[in-house]
């Protein structure tokens, strides 16, 4: 029995194209929010469909944990790794370590800054920031006062989305930012911050949230104050789709987490099998608005 196992293991690492079941690992920066869970679930479904084994790790918002997990995957004999990094810079060693061990790494959702990355499936968060800000600019006709609710300071998604927002703001000097603060992706924190801003300013024209949760929290505060200030978010989580439908959010910038998850598995399997893969597979952000929300709701099912 034992010898059998050994043989199998060898065939796994030496020659992955043979019969042995391919095993891949996937580390996500977190498994504690709806978006990444959706991504992970899609990847798992795809892996099952393709008949390969997938192990999912929760990075707990900590790059060094993710590095540890990649180390664990390597010593566990994974054939390939999918990386959804907490930080674009700090997770580079994950790629290096895997590359040293000869294991392909496919990035997903956030592009890690490493030239050894086998391939990348996803989008650029800067675009999301640009899209949502542009939407608000159009709504306000290029003039007005906004507040920005940010993600956890220093996280790649926060930095890049903020950068995108700024790109648009630079073009429209008549849009004034009254206040900005982090609400750590959290709905209740977003709500609290917004309540306080509503006390402080009576001239807020729109709320830009770096994700849906915070934007939804802000909307709760606005509604409770008996006002109607438009808000926008990013991700397209279920609650946000409903909110768009009910005119509660102006729009959400939909990230196709499920699409990214399953595509990443496909690309990784191709790479393991020695096929050439492209450097980037762009899965673009899409705007969800009242007109197309039905379609997105069906896709999310």
């Amino acid at each position, binding site marked *: 029995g034992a010898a059998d196992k050994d043989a199998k293991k060898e065939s796994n690492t030496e020659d992955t194209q043979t019969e042995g079941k391919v095993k891949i690992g996937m580390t996500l920066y977190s498994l504690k929010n709806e978006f990444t869970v959706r991504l992970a679930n899609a990847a798992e479904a795809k892996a099952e469909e393709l008949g390969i084994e997938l192990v999912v790790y929760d990075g707990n918002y900590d790059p060094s944990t993710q590095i540890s997990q990649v180390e664990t995957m390597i010593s566990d004999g994974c054939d390939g790794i999918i990386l959804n990094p907490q930080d674009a810079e700090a997770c580079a060693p994950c790629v290096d370590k895997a590359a040293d061990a000869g294991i392909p790494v496919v990035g997903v959702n956030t592009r890690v800054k490493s030239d050894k990355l086998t391939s990348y499936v996803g989008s650029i968060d800067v675009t999301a920031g640009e899209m949502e800000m542009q939407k608000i600019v159009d709504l306000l006709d290029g003039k007005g006062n906004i507040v920005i609710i940010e993600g956890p300071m220093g996280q790649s998604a926060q930095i890049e989305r903020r950068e995108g927002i700024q790109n648009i703001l630079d073009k429209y000097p008549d849009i004034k930012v009254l*206040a900005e*603060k982090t609400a750590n992706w959290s*709905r209740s924190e977003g709500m609290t911050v917004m309540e306080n801003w509503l006390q402080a300013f009576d001239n807020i024209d729109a709320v830009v949230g770096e994700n849906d*949760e915070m934007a939804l929290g802000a909307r709760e505060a606005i509604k409770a104050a008996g006002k109607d200030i438009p808000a926008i978010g990013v991700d397209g989580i279920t609650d946000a789709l409903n909110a768009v439908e009910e005119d509660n959010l102006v729009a959400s910038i939909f990230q196709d987490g499920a699409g990214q998850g399953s595509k990443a598995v496909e690309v990784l399997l191709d790479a393991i099998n020695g096929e050439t893969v492209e450097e980037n597979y762009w899965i673009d952000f899409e705007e969800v608005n009242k007109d197309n929300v039905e379609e997105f709701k069906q896709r999310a099912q």
Partner: protein
Amino acid sequence: MEKDKEQKIGVKTFIAKYGVIVGLVIIMVFFTVMKAKFLTVENMLNMLRQTSINGLLAIGMTFVVLTGGIDLSVGSIVGASGMFAALVARTEVGMPWYLALLVGLLVGLLLGAVNGVIISYLRVPAFIATLGMLSIARGITFMASDAKPVPGLSKGFLSIGGGSVGFFPIPILILIFVLIICYITLYKTRYGRYVFATGGNPTSARVSGINVKLITCSVYMISGLLSGLAGVILTSRVTSGLAQSGNGYEVDAIAAAVIGGNSLSGGRGRLWGTIIGFLIMGVMNNGLDMMAVSSYWQLVIKGIIIIGAVMLDSLNEIKE
């Protein structure tokens, strides 16, 4: 002359005894000067409503801290009880709001009781037991919802956190109600005495015929119950059950209790101190947001305020 001296001592001992109150007043004056809209009835109600959740946790924490314990699991219990309450409160389930509230409270009480039993009967240090519970309760919460929000809660349930009675937001009324009950419990009942005695000297308490284990266990149940209540209010306030909610709340709750002058080694404490403690935290968060201070500076200023407020309290000791 004589009188003069007495009055001086009066002011000194006042600061000595009520240093944190002075701290709170200074902070409030500062924000009022900086931002006229700060000291309005509307904003004060807003601030109180926001702080009511931390307030409930801090009150529960005061019981725990008085016995020399600590409860790190309050944030996770908020999450778990809020989630289970939300699952029951969905419009499609069709249960009345008070049943959902009851579920939340029961989940809180149960998890608190588990803490209590592990700490008092199995003698695991409170830090470890509640740290374990922090992890376990959060895990359960994620499983219950697979990390997805649970929206679509019934109207009745939503008014727990969002409604008002006349002018007063319901969460504030709940907080005041709980405060009165807890004040009476701590200072007017036999049970309260036993809590102080257990924290001050468990051996003496035991010799005096007090069931120290039961008392120890009970304070975690109180903390759990109040966390459950806080979880229900939070869920109702954000209008959906969120698996992450309450994450990290334990730190603010402990901070409020300690800022208020409750000693973490037990036996020495005061409920009014806790009130000042959570008010300081609430005012600080609200005021800094209103002044639109940047996220970075908020961190620095908050740190300084927390230390500064307590320093006033300890100034007199230094002289001695």
